């Protein structure tokens, strides 16, 4: 990314973003105290949220939902309607921001093509999830206690057992664990108000019948050369997701495409750091391509309309070593970016790969591109890889994801080139995919023992009796 591009992004704060976020914040603050005890101010916030849709097809429904909730007769359908309104507002914010980013980067994006929805067949379970979410909203974050958190345990456990319900299961599990760790929430000084409202809203919409269908159907199959840009790591106590960003050069020519591919595994809280790479062991070709910084040749790999390759290790074979920085420099500009599925239109889901060079690192760790400054999210460097704040601070080139959170753009590094003792070194988040390569880390891992193996042994002995 160039200084001129960043300047353009800075200058063009899209119109209406601030107003839309104000409506969202009003709703989020009502959730803090609970819908059962709405103050006048919070009641007005719900009415205002609904009012934003007055001229749209859902205007009447939204207005009715707000009236009902404000008058104290709170039903699931009303909450779903308001959650839908909040989602639509953030969807509009997402669209405006992504359009700005695309314009600044000169990135072209495919149009969304809806696929045929499929039935998801977990009606009762999802009903239980929705009831729990409604109970949370009525109670408010401040009133959540151990009993209310634990009430979700059985539902989460049952959802986890159904592979098609992994999305709501992982989301509810993460939210419940966070609430559990924060109990008693009534005495907390500050609450992550936007965050919990985001998670709540998303969970409620995902738990609708058909809430996640249509986006999960393979749109086509792709063959070609996958050039890896980097891997983004997501993690909570009981889940880890490795999301690879790359450029796909289709076999037989044609326009290169920006794609992602992910592996998500269940885990427990005590599996942390480089040990998480042991979990996706069913995908050795992907892992060794990450560790060896190689490309992958893929054949007939299913791809979703969202631009996500549904990884299948049997459809991939190792290719030649690739310089990710060269790929970013040469191929990023012309590659076609995927469309965002309707429910994934949310500012938090903006994660656009970029290459940043020609910067000086400021004292607070931001990148100064000659007068215009890009914030860098060094808190978001995963413990499973070699990237550290120090390496980022000493870097001269960086592949990262452009993110938008808390009202501004920031860069999440995935790989850096840095000078260490007059030698140029490279570090990528995926370097340790086949095990750590830093002798110090190898030693520490050996000292701590193999957490995955210990727990598997315990599971083998105790679980099937």
């Amino acid at each position: 990314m160039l200084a001129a591009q960043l300047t353009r992004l800075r200058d063009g704060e899209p119109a209406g973003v601030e107003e839309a976020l104000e409506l969202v914040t009003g709703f989020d603050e009502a959730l803090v105290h609970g819908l059962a005890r709405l103050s006048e101010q919070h009641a007005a916030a719900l009415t205002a949220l609904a009012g934003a849709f007055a001229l749209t097809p859902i205007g009447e429904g939204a207005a009715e939902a707000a009236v009902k909730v404000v008058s104290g007769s709170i039903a699931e359908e009303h909450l779903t309607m308001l959650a839908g309104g909040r989602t639509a507002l953030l969807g509009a914010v997402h669209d405006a921001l992504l359009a700005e980013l695309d314009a600044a980067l000169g990135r072209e994006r495919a149009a969304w093509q809806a696929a045929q929805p499929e039935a998801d067949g977990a009606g009762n379970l999802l009903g239980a999830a929705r009831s729990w979410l409604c109970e949370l909203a009525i109670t408010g974050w401040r009133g959540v206690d151990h009993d209310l958190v634990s009430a979700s345990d059985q539902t989460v456990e049952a959802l986890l057992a159904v592979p098609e319900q992994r999305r709501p299961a992982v989301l509810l599990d993460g939210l419940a664990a966070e609430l559990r760790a924060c109990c008693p929430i009534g005495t907390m000084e500050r609450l992550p108000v936007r965050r919990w409202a985001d998670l709540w809203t998303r969970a409620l919409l995902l738990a609708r019948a058909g809430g996640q269908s249509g986006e999960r159907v393979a749109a086509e199959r792709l063959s070609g050369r996958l050039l890896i840009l980097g891997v983004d790591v997501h993690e909570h106590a009981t889940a880890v997701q490795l999301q690879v960003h790359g450029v796909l050069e289709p076999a037989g020519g044609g326009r290169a495409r920006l794609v992602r591919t992910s592996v998500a595994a269940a885990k427990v809280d005590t599996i942390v750091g480089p040990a998480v790479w042991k979990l996706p062991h069913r995908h050795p070709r992907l892992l060794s391509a990450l560790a060896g910084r190689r490309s992958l040749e893929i054949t007939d790999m299913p791809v979703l309309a969202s631009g996500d390759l549904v990884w299948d290790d049997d459809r991939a074979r190792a290719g030649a070593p690739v310089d990710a920085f060269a790929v970013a420099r040469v191929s990023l500009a012309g590659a076609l970016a995927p469309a965002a599925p309707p429910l994934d239109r949310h500012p938090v889901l903006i994660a656009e790969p970029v290459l940043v060079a020609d910067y000086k690192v400021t004292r607070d760790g931001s990148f100064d591109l000659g007068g215009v400054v890009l914030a860098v999210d060094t808190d978001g460097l995963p413990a499973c890889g070699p990237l550290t704040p120090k390496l980022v601070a000493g870097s001269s080139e960086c592949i990262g994801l452009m993110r938008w959170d808390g009202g501004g753009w920031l860069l999440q590094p995935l790989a850096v080139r840095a000078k260490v003792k007059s030698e140029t070194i490279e570090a990528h988040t995926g370097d340790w995919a086949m095990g750590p390569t830093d002798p110090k880390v190898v030693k520490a891992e050996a000292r701590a023992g193999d957490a995955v193996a210990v727990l598997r042994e315990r599971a083998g002995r105790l679980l099937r009796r």
Partner: protein
Amino acid sequence: MIDCLPAGTAVWEQCGRVPVVPPVRPRKLAKVPFVELADGRLQGVVSSGSDISRVYVSSVTAATHTYSCSTNNNRPCGGLSGSSPCKHLRALTVEAVLQYGLDRVARYLRAEVSEGADLIDCLRGGLGPAPAAMVFSRFLRHLAYLELPDTTMPIPELHWFPATRMVR
């Protein structure tokens, strides 16, 4: 809680991707495979030193600091007397401090730990009841996560849970 701001952003309350619960610290799991702060207790499972298929379920209740220890078959731990905790409880608290840090454990238990003292020596609640069967079933549920197959369908929701190297 982590109350720091990502650089360049305005208000923590209005951030979506802020870590709320710090990741736990790595520790050896062989002796004490399971530790958690949940349901108002520090509770966990300690492997028996003599019998590979036996485990002890140990717990300390917050605020009252009463403690209990029994086998997974609900036999009371032989090392436990009314006046002092057993070695399993001692191991549980030591590992809990490694996993969560002393501050977080002490805050959860509402315990005052004087400088340089061990947590276990500051808990003087005596023997108390505890739902050992429930703790053991939570441990089995914990282990069951490792039996779930991975998925290659993307989980966009996990973008709200960025991995972090911050341990507090």
